[in-house]
């Protein structure tokens, strides 16, 4: 008797929740706004603020400005903070959560609870292994192996290199480095002389590279994750030559790649890596699902890898990426500004002011996303649990080897 009453209660609760979830979009059309949360783990570097700013700008762009109530929550660098932030958002009746997750596994239980309550979870850049979320990320696009091959090509297959890595123990850092090593290990002529953690930060990269240069002044190339501009600075501080290097998308790095004076000193390479634009893409996808313009099951969605070799750097004249430009003049943005925050196809609504200040572009309206989404590969421990990675996980997609091992 007691049992059946409990069951009845549970069924009632489930029904209420189910009903709630089903009717939300209708309510929204009746003039009630979608409750969307933007959950950051930490803030304070250019990448994180740009990613957050474009979501704010999109939410303030018509017609979303009438439909969305966006709340930003910054919970710090520990998973507990983000777990409790998610809990509060679920309690508050969130329709959707756009988030940069701090851990790929620690948040899973809370996320599951949220999914059961009908909340849509969209993770950008970093991913989680919980299958009920949408992971929007470039992580499956092969940053590590492609940039490593580009460096090997520049070096003619032999030389002493540095690996400037990200944050120790972080799954993203490990994925990139494993991908890169899969290439470097094929070439016996490539010697990894020093490997250091630069925390994806310009200043740390500069100091760590300076330290490594003391022991290995004869380095031939640098493979770097974000913070790459610091590595150039460290080489310049030594007063000597520059070397071929690959790095991510900082404006300073792109301008340096295209600068004849720097090329004269020996700088060559390619700019690729994590685009802050992923957050905007995630938010727009979520809104298309909430407004029933698109049906899409939770999945790993791949964001295309930006790929800009030195000869493709083109400085923009205006405040948007037009006519194929992909960097901004010195003085318009700081050198640590991450350029790949705009996208003429996916995010035509935005300008550089949106990225810097979170403001919408006057007169812009939300444009629909392309129909196609690209499903990303399985990466165990990164975007799925107990799953098998494809055999060709580290296959090259952006560049061909020009030297044989």
């Amino acid at each position, binding site marked *: 008797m007691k049992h059946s009453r409990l069951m009845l209660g549970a069924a009632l609760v489930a029904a209420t929740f189910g009903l709630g979830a089903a009717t939300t979009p209708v309510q929204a059309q009746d003039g009630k706004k979608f409750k969307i949360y933007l959950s950051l783990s930490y*803030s*304070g570097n250019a990448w994180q603020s740009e990613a957050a700013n474009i979501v704010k700008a999109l939410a303030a762009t018509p017609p979303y400005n009438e439909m969305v109530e966006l709340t930003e929550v910054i919970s710090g660098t520990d998973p507990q903070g983000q777990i409790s932030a998610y809990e509060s958002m679920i309690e508050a009746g969130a329709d959707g959560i756009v988030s940069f997750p701090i851990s790929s596994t620690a948040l899973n239980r809370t996320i599951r609870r949220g999914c059961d309550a009908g909340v849509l979870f969209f993770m950008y850049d970093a991913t989680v292994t919980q299958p009920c979320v949408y992971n929007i990320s470039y992580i499956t696009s092969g940053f590590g192996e492609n940039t490593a091959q580009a460096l090997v090509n520049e070096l003619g297959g032999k030389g002493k290199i540095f690996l400037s890595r990200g944050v*120790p123990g972080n799954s993203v850092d490990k994925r990139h480095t494993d991908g890169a090593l899969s290439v470097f290990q094929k070439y016996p002529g490539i010697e990894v002389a020093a490997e250091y953690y630069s925390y994806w930060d310009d200043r740390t990269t*500069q100091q760590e590279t300076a330290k490594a240069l*003391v022991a290995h002044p004869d380095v031939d190339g640098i493979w770097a994750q974000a913070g790459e501009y*610091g590595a150039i600075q460290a080489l310049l501080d030594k007063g000597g030559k520059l070397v071929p290097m690959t790095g991510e998308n900082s404006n300073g790095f792109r301008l340096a790649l295209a600068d004849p004076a720097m090329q004269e000193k020996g700088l060559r390479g390619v700019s690729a890596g994590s685009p802050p634009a992923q957050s905007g893409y995630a938010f727009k996808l979520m809104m298309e699902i909430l407004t029933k313009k698109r049906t899409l099951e939770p999945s790993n969605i791949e964001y295309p890898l930006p790929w800009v070799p030195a000869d493709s750097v083109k400085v923009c004249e205006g405040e948007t990426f037009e006519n194929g430009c992909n960097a901004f003049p010195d003085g318009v*943005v*700081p050198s640590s500004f991450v350029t790949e925050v705009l996208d003429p196809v996916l995010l035509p609504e935005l300008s550089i002011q949106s990225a810097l200040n979170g403001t919408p572009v006057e007169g812009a309206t939300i444009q629909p996303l392309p129909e196609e989404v690209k499903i990303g590969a399985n990466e165990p421990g990164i975007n799925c649990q107990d799953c098998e990675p494809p055999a060709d996980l580290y296959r090259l997609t952006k560049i061909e080897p020009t030297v044989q091992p």
Partner: protein
Amino acid sequence: MTPQTEMLDKFAAERDTRKARRFDRHTVSAVVVFALCVLLILASRLVSPSLGSFQQVLTVMTLASFLVVLSFGQGLVILTGGLDLSLPALITLGGVLTTTWIGNGPGAWYLLPAVLAVCGGVGLATAIGIVWLKVPPFIMTMATSIIVASAALGLTNGTPRGASPEILLLLMKGSYLGVPAPVYFLVVFAVAGWIVQSRTVLGRYLYALGTNREAAQIAGVPVTLVSILPYVVSAVCAGFVGMMLVGYANGATLRMGDNYLLPSIAAVVIGGSSILGGSGNFAGTVGGAILLTTVGTVIAAIGLEQGLRTIIEGAIILVALLLLREELFERLRGLSAKVKSAG
């Protein structure tokens, strides 16, 4: 024999005639720390043949200059029995204001003192909380840290703009006679800091306050003023480190100070100062800062896993601290005395 003369005889017998006492133990600490640095740099040849060079010394000194300036302020605060946790936030504030007001805006180099004044003002507010409102330094500086860091985040919308003013580039990137400018700066700052802490009235007041607050008050030390000053100096030093980092890396970020808090405390303690206040010497702190940086460069050259490297780094710091313990000197001294009396 009267009791008085008996007593006097006893004192005379116990009078310390050992020569070693002429050097106070802080001077010994400082010398030992510097000796350790030299030893480590020479030993680093074993790690990589490119190490152990004069070039390495210059790189270490350049990288240590940030920590030396920072730990001067931290050292003064620790000397009076406090602890300043707000340094990373103030480094960021100094850096961000420098790039926004000067590097990017219409301002010129003469606004640099204004940036330092703002930092000093924050330090003053912290000190007021500690001295008058009696908030424990640990909590008060933590609160300041959170407030200042958030203000910097708000001020910049997350993306600090602007580049470094020319004058800071000269300070951090210049080079004279083959020696980088920050090395000259480090030497001048170290001497000036040592004089302030060990040879001025203010320095004496700070030691007095840190040793015994009540006694200092009775002895006529202006206790309130002397309690406030270290926090202001510390904040100004941190703001200046922010400027140095801007010059070094030609720009500011909101997390630029994050890696400096614990090293600033460690440098002071490794240099032989008491974490409880009242004793220490800036020469030792400078040595501590250089030692920490040296360990960093040598460790960076070892091709080991990051985990192992960090373990080795921690172990070296621990060994250095143990070597510098007062008891060790006493024991060594006792040992040499025994040897002498035996001989």
